[in-house]
């Protein structure tokens, strides 16, 4: 019995350790180039004002357990402006935005900025942070969430 308990404890500990290290996230920026009338996205390197940068966050579940309710929060970098409608994800997810630096998130039609007479519905370029909530990511799988922004 003692031996069985010890084995169970070790297994539980291993499961816990595996679960804690299951999902990784990496971020990479890309920009579109057109060569011989064919467009492709390459790593962002030649970026000047007006350039559109595509940010891809790749989520990999290296474990065996299914990760759930994956919440990715990405602040739009300084000097960049979010481009409306470009925050998407590969799998089923919900996207909301913040105009207060990530304190609160909501759908675009409920986002307002300014005070008094200057209060208005927030433009996409005024979004400060994007949040994706991915339902789940099975073990051994990967998915991406992404958005595009323009350099001011």
């Amino acid at each position, binding site marked *: 019995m003692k031996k069985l308990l010890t084995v169970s404890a070790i297994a539980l500990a291993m499961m816990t350790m595996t679960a804690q290290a*299951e999902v990784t996230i990496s*971020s990479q920026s890309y920009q579109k180039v057109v060569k011989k009338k064919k467009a492709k996205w390459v790593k962002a*390197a030649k970026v000047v004002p007006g350039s559109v940068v595509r940010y891809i966050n790749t989520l990999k579940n290296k474990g065996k357990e299914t990760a759930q*309710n994956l919440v990715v*929060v990405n602040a739009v970098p300084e000097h*960049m402006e979010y481009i409306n409608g470009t925050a998407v994800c590969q799998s089923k997810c919900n996207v909301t935005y913040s105009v207060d630096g990530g304190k609160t998130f909501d759908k675009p039609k409920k986002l307002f900025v300014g005070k008094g007479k200057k209060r208005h519905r927030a433009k996409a370029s005024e979004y400060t942070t994007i949040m994706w909530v991915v339902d789940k990511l099975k073990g051994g799988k990967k998915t991406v969430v992404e958005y595009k922004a323009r350099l001011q």
Partner: protein
Amino acid sequence: MKKILVMASTMLFGFMGANAAGTVAGTLVNNSATLSYTVGTVSQTAIVSNTDSFIVDNKIDLTVAHQDATIVAVTPGATVQVLTFEVTNTGNKVQDFLLTQTLNDGNPYAGETDNFDATTVQVFVDVNGNGVYDTGTDTATFIDELAPDAAVTVFIVSNIPTGQVNNDVSDHTLTAQVAVGGAAGQGAAIATDDSANADTAMGEEIVFADGDGAGATEGANDGMHADHSAYKVVSAALAVVKSSCVLSDPVNAGTNPKRIPGAIIRYEIQIANTGSAAATVVSLADAIATQYGTSAANLEVRTAACAGIDGGTNACATKAGTVETNAGTGGAGTSNVTLDYATVAAGATECGYIEVTIQ
């Protein structure tokens, strides 16, 4: 002190941040994301992605625009005649700009065609920023350290040859070429960008983004821009016609008079200005022929075309126009008279009259 600090921080933000020309070259842009999730019902420790970074590259863009709304009117022999342009740094970094001018490369003014070259052509920067060329002050020949979004006035300064006539046109093109900025003094021209070189995320590459200007010697994406302007000679063009009639003679008086001794001859001298500018200080000297001795009465200049001689009968007729107050010098009784037409406006015709008696 608090106010000063606020102002200082605002200026710093303005320099480091975006402006109309965009984010300043060399700015580091970082991006990272945070992930949190659950496994089963257990919340896992949030993790932060790597930081993706790149350096904002040097977008070189500029415009040259002529500022003279209409072609610049000049007169023959005029010196230090000025064409005005504006050079704007629409890129995202402080740059120098080299300036050159070329002749006969077109102009923006409809119907005007180049047919002469102004001389002693020079290019100067409006150093004191007053928008007016100041001899001895505006001596810089290149633009030094022009900030993003900033503009500066540039002048082409020339002389007009004395031999030019009304409506002559001289075309001039100002070309600005970007040069290395960042330090006082003329930087080296930036002749090529990094389009042929491999991109590096953490390097500040040069990207030519300029449009095609008006100059034939530059095009899009070459670090240069140009625009045209032109001088047009606006001068008076005077034509003089002299004719005569017999006003009276001692035998026939005013009836069919003949040119016999004692007859009074009327000379009318018409000056027509067919040019585009008024002729000023117009005077006409007439040495009275010895056969006449001296001039008679009625020296005058009238503000109308000559009408004192009937074109059909060649007889003297009623003079048109009104007598100008300044009708000349010399006057009746002298052998050399000067008719003072004063100002003959563009398109105007005036007539002077001298009456003499045949000896």
